[in-house]
């Protein structure tokens, strides 16, 4: 589960039209999230609120033997008016979905953070870049204090120009050397390529990483249009024959680090192929990263087999030490009410579609796949409302997700996340099949409420 503040930060990015995925760091984000999802430990309660469009708070209380907690505040100069922050309205996909679809390059699609009700026709029409207000100069301030440890986190994100963003994050803690560390990040995103430079006070680490996109939509003329969905849709129908084949985008990049104080460095190269949202077949993402210094080869493959099912595998091999690793991950969405038996509610009755306006909120399968709203063209309105009951019956509105992973040490991670009433919960456990005597390595429950 993404934390509330993470969600708000993402909302900020989308509100300012920043594509956070267009960086080398996020090259294999899909497989990483499908396989390496964090398991909650102990009991953790989060109370969050987007009090004003500019200001969000979050309080967390957790116990893993000892009670700890954190207080965090976030301030954004951009009003996050449309963001659905209430935990009963947050789109679960925004919090829980692991499979990341490619954004259209240069697109400023921010709508999937918008609550369904808050996404009327005019919102959809603001999708094009020219209608987004000039957001350079907008900034985000974030601070978090972990209480018993007295650990302070702070982050400043500032947009200097539409293509340039500076991010400064710092941690202050007594146990750290020099009392804390500071990381500066300069991100430059031109759509076709994105470059990042970073510097850390810890060890004087300097780094450069970049990502270059080619193939697919970038090579065609489509790149010229900061595509509204309808645009790409029509574009796709034009290239129907091409899209029957695998239709996606290649990305390649690399990273280079050098610690000026400890005279050590590291580097890696990577490539990715991912299908574009307009691809009609099964969406897939495949990445390959190589660390030539350490002889490490890492290949991942993630596929959105069904709308409710994502799968990912990862293989690692080291040519120097002949060590290998594999891991598989899975994500299964369910439309059953997760805590139905607890709440005494009949799932069938619950899934019964409400008449009237809520029905309009339902998105089509295709739209969901693309993580966007449906086009609100009036002529399609009528047939869609007729489809609605059937769609609801087959479980369009997901209420929970089961994530599982397994690695070569036969360790299983299980995570069940969903929404119960207006609480978003995350229940996870780690199981070690090698030690069947006491298989449960960890158990945790996270509950998040926001208003």
């Amino acid at each position, binding site marked *: 589960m993404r934390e509330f503040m993470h969600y708000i930060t993402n909302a900020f990015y989308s509100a300012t039209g920043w594509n956070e995925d267009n960086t080398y760091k996020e090259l294999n984000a899909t497989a990483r999230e499908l396989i390496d999802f964090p398991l909650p430990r102990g009991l953790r309660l989060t109370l969050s609120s987007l009090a004003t469009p500019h200001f969000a708070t979050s309080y967390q209380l957790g116990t893993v033997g000892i009670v700890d907690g954190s207080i965090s505040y976030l301030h954004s100069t951009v009003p996050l008016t449309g963001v659905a922050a209430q935990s009963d309205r947050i789109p679960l996909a925004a919090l829980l979905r692991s499979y990341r679809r490619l954004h259209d390059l240069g697109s400023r699609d921010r709508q999937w953070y918008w609550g369904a009700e808050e996404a009327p026709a005019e919102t959809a029409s603001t999708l094009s870049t020219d209608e987004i207000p000039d957001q350079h100069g907008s900034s985000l301030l974030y601070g978090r204090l972990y209480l018993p440890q007295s650990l302070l986190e702070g982050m400043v994100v500032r947009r200097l120009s539409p293509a340039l963003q500076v991010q400064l994050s710092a941690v202050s803690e007594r146990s750290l050397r020099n009392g804390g560390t500071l990381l500066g990040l300069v991100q430059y995103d031109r759509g076709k390529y994105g470059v990042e430079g970073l510097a850390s006070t810890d*060890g004087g680490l300097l780094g450069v990483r970049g990502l270059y996109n080619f193939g697919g939509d970038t090579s065609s003329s489509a790149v010229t249009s900061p595509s509204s969905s309808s645009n790409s849709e029509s574009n796709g129908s034009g290239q129907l024959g091409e899209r029957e084949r695998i239709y996606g985008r290649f990305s390649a990049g690399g990273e280079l680090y050098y610690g000026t104080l400890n005279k050590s460095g590291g580097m890696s190269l990577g490539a990715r192929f991912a299908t574009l949202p307009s691809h009609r077949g099964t969406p897939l993402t495949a990445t390959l990263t190589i660390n030539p210094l350490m002889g490490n080869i890492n290949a991942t493959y993630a596929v959105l087999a069904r709308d409710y099912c994502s799968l990912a595998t990862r293989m690692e091999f080291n040519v120097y030490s002949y060590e290998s690793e594999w891991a598989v991950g899975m994500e299964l969405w369910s439309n059953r009410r997760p805590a139905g038996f607890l709440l005494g509610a009949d799932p069938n009755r619950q899934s019964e579609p409400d008449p009237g306006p809520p029905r309009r909120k339902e998105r089509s399968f295709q739209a969901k796949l693309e993580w966007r709203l449906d086009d609100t063209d009036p002529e399609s309105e009528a047939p869609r409302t007729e489809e609605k009951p059937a769609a609801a019956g087959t479980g369009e509105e997901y209420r929970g997700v089961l994530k599982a992973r397994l690695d070569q040490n036969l360790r299983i991670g299980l995570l069940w996340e969903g929404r119960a009433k207006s609480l978003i919960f995350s229940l996870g456990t780690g199981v070690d099949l090698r030690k069947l005597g006491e298989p449960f390595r960890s158990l945790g429950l996270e509950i998040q409420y926001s208003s």
Partner: protein
Amino acid sequence: MAFNFNWSPLTADAEFYKRARDLLTTALNKSPKPPIIVDDIIVTEFNLGSVPPDLEILEIGDLAEDRFRGIFKMCYSGDAFLTLKTRVQANPLNTYLSAKPGFTSPQPLAAASSLTIPLQITLSEIKLSAFIILVFSKQKGLTIVFRNDPLESLKVSSTFDSIQFVRDYLQRTIEGKLRDLMMDELPAIIHRLSLQLWCPDQMAKEDEEPKEADEPGVNPLATPPLDAVDAHGHLLDPAAISELTLDGGPEAQLLFSQKTLRRLSDLTRSQVTSSLDTAAPRDVLFRAWAGQSDKADATNSPPLSTPNLARSSSYTSAHTYTFSDSVSQDHGSLPSRPSLVHLNSATAGLSLGSGRHNKAGRKKKTRVVNLRRKAGTEVSSEQGDETSETASIGVPMSEPVMPHPILEVPEEEPVSGKVRFSRSPDLGEQTRRASIMAERPKTPEAQMPAVGISDSATAPQPPIQLSEKPRSREVAKESGPVDSKADWRRSRPVSDTSSVILEQAWIMKMAGEIARRVYDEKTRNPTFWDDQDDTPPPAYEAR
């Protein structure tokens, strides 16, 4: 005197190396490892070699059948070697990230991927030169302390010998680690190993010694057993007991099992009440000792310090029991003077020996410091030990023998106190001590059991005491002047901190002095002895 050090039998024992390897492995993996080491450190090979170390005895501090303390100089340049195996993380970025907070992590995609390399390190050509303090006691096992940094040089050869930088780094790191290991871990390992070796003894002790704890209600660690005996049934030096009980920690706690203590308290209670049902622990000797001895205790108890008050009060309320398995054996073998030996220990330990326990406990702390000083101070402290033994010779005698004249003691006390203070205390003590010793041969039948107590630690057979007596007397004589000085010097660091402790020490000294006076009186008119010897208290054997 000769010592025989066996080097080869250690290596001949096939199990020894396996055990040593296991102990070393656990010791190496105990402390949290740096992030660069990603696997357990495993000791794969360990060999002590065939060349024994050169040992030079600098000093023998304490020598007895069941304990030993000495300082050695050890030089070693043999062919011992040790091979370790582990895996290290070769990616510097990986180890760099592992210790950093995730929030400011640069989050590299694959640059931090791990590359673990198996590493084998062989340590050989170890050259040691150390001053070793070795303390051995049967109860506590073997303790070794290095007085200086023992490691002179060693050769580190590893998988990365071809890379100069890595080799130098490893050499430096391992030398540092090994120094820590030698100074901190090795003593612990050896101690554990020795406990394993003498484990059967420990087990046996655990069964026997609790019976000496004759006051069940009180924490045995606060009030050590009054007349502990060793495995052969001979009395232990109070210093040794205090060593055992006062700093033994959990080991010592084991000696007094809850079950035994509860049984003893049951026993006491059954005697206090008029219940006919008496608990009957096995191998226990009952002694009823009512009347004057109780009074004696009552008169003696006021000058004692508070911890002793609790004990004496329990004595005044009830009878005196001595639970001793071994004494019943002595009883059989030496029928002429069984009770005397026994009662000495019981009551003397009660009134004075307990004070000595405390003092000995304090002494124990400073003794370590003494070891680290020059050899001269060591000798003096040793003499102090000896004198405390001789003092315990004189003291116990007075107590059991004085049931009738004990009433005179308070009257005598001020006189003796004055005498003591008007003259130099050292001199007074010396002469008095000398007089005690000189008068001893006159009453050999009274002496014998007493000397038996003092010698019991060294000589197992009481009959030998006569032949040993001259030696002990000599020791006592020559240590007479040094004794009090050493005593005072030893107690000074403590007394500086609080005058209360000094007072206590003084009171104890006074009490010892009084008892010695009383003993002198007894020896001057030995008729008292005859009276007492004729009437030993009735003994009941519980069956």
